[in-house]
């Protein structure tokens, strides 16, 4: 075996990784790092860079439009994530019982998540809840004048949240798998000791599935802060900017006709840092509430 052949044999794995590595470097690492550089400039896609500045970062917290978008993003995340986790866990808990047609229900509840981030589902949502939509028609039958779901500033964000909460299927499936893993003998012992269903749920089920709750919390948090499709398609960020999430603002600045890449990059980086902080807090907090059976517990 020649030296070259030996070299290839010993390093063949690296060659298989090269396409992925190239893709990662070109489409992930480079944009990621270059956006950091651009975030300190007034980079305009067509006019280029004319100055280096911290203004983009300062504006995120001082400019009213950007600050509002940041607040709305927090509101959206803090409404969506708990509601979605609770809904997913609740339905998973019910579907864990031996009830008739359980497979049908599991499929039915999972379907919205298959449709997931698709544009079609957002269009459907808009068609259902707009002032001439099906929901208003049903209200009309009962002589009720329903709210303007997408044009009333108090309703619009909630409706966008609801769209995401409705798509709880993937979190539900993960919860369901975790619930299946809880030993039945624990429930039997608890029942003998006189614990009711609620007591069993909070003292046995919840502690034992905390690693899965933690996993779902992190993934849902990341998704919530990056939400784009719903507000972009349904409300375009309106009414009066009440559904303009940070990701939508990033898009609007970068591609909405003004091509302010420097500003958009800074906003994206602020969003990234916020996500990092929340993820770090979550990881730090897990020692207080997440139970891992394979080590010393908490």
């Amino acid at each position, binding site marked *: 075996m020649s030296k070259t052949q030996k070299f290839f044999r010993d390093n063949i794995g690296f060659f298989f990784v090269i396409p992925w590595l190239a893709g990662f470097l070109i489409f992930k690492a480079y944009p990621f790092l270059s956006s950091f550089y651009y975030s300190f400039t007034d980079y305009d*896609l*067509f006019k280029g860079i004319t100055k280096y500045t911290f203004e983009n970062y300062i504006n995120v917290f001082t400019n009213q439009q950007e600050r509002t978008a940041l607040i709305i993003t927090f509101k959206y995340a803090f409404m969506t994530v708990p509601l979605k986790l609770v809904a997913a866990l609740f339905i998973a808990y019910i579907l864990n019982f031996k009830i008739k047609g359980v497979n049908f229900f599991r499929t039915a509840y999972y379907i919205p998540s298959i449709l997931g981030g698709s544009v079609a589902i957002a269009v459907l949502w*808009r*068609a259902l809840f*707009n*002032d*001439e*939509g099906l929901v208003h028609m049903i209200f009309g039958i009962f002589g009720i004048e329903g709210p*303007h779901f*997408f*044009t*009333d*500033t108090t309703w619009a964000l909630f409706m966008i949240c609801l769209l995401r909460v409705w798509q709880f299927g993937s979190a539900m499936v993960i919860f369901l798998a975790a619930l299946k893993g809880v030993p039945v003998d624990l429930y039997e012992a608890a029942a003998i000791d006189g614990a009711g269903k609620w007591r069993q749920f909070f003292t046995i089920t919840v502690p034992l599935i905390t690693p899965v709750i933690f996993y779902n919390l992190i993934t849902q948090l990341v998704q919530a802060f990056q939400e784009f499709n719903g507000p972009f398609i*349904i409300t*375009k*960020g*309106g*009414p*009066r*900017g009440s559904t*303009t999430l940070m990701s939508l603002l990033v898009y*609007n600045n970068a*591609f*909405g*006709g*003004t*091509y302010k890449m420097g500003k958009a990059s800074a906003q994206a980086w602020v969003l990234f840092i916020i996500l990092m902080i929340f993820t770090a807090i979550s990881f730090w907090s897990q020692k207080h509430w997440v139970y891992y059976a394979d080590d010393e517990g908490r």
Partner: protein
Amino acid sequence: MKKKLIATLLTAAMATTLLAGCGSAAEQPAAETTAAEPAAETEAAAETTAETAAADADAAESYEECTLTMDWWGGDSRHEATIAAIEAFEAKYPGITIEYNYGAWSDWETAKASEYLSGTNADIQQTNFDWIRKYDADGTTYLDLNTVADTLDLTQYSESTLSLPVDVNGGLAGVPVSLTGRTFYWNKATYEAAGLSTPTTMEELMAAGPIFKEKLGDNYYPLVATEYDRAILMAFYLQAQTGEPIIDQNGNFTLTEEQVKEGLEWITSLEENHVIPTIEYYDGEGAEAIDKSARWINGEYAGCHTWDSSPKSLVSALPNPDDFVVGNELMDTGEFGSGSYAKVSLMFSISAKCEHPHEAALFLNFILNDEEGAALMATERGVPESAAAYAICEAAGAINPIIAEAHKSVMDSNPMYWNPLFDDSSLKGDTSVYNTLFENLSYGVRDGSYSVEDAAYDLYTAYTAIAPAK
């Protein structure tokens, strides 16, 4: 193994050479030249057509076999017409292939912007008037069409029309296909149901609001206006008061903050008088456009104010197209008439990087001025500005009578100059000033969170940021 590799490489090299040969500038006579066929019925049409054909024939004496790329945006009927014209051109000029790409307007400009940035824009493009300022700021994106005037017959266009799409170097960045302006369209059945005839004056329109509310109900409006419509209506109103464009030819904003406030008060009065619905009510339906609105289709919105080139979709949306009537400009809007303006609706441009400008010009001349090409393109991009194309379309009965009537309404109103800064991306766009400001105003004046004074200050600031005060 090595021999096989060498053989493969040699074969590949040969193929490359052959392909390069195909694309090279091997000049050859055109298979066909355009014959002057006086098919037009009118004398004027015959004259212009013959002149065009003669110019075409001279210019097309020789051309290179090549492949050109082209793109445009629009609706289905425009796509069909353009593809038919491309096929006719390829049949007439064998050896020239047009590779085309088309789509709807939505996000089209974003895609084109990235192409301009990367230098991958098509050889021939349908372009917007304001793109000259946005993407051809240094005059190097679009070819100066005067350089191909021996092939592209520019004599078919008036001097005033050709004076508009000029780049910073004085070059002709595009050839305007048509001029356009806005006029009113009415649903006469709804007006009749309210016991009214369609309005011919601003006074009648303002009076119609309360009557609609009383006789037809809260959900019936004489006119519907989106945020951008309101910006244009306000411009018309103020131009009718001052007699000059709100942004003049020097790029200066001609209004004071007080005048902007007057314009906004007038827009607010339209809402308050039930002439137009609130933004909350309009957006609540979630319709993509007025012609997609169930309220337009069933006659609850009895009027709209839009381009003279786009009434077809509004007509076809109505159950009874006969209910649709073209209104005139409302000449009592102010002391100086309707305050309307006209602008280049869209253009065709050739990329400065195009390797075959002569052939690209040959193609443009075919679709814009040639008897066969212009007839196929018809009025899919508005009433043609080319005298030859107009004569051809008129003779063939291809000019849609509704479009012609709407266009006449605009042109008869002595329209003013329109500066493309009016559509600057900071003003026009989903989240730009027009949308956010008129939305805020509509909501804000009702709940007290945003006043006309606030809006006047914001709008004046936004305008003067791109067009310094005069």
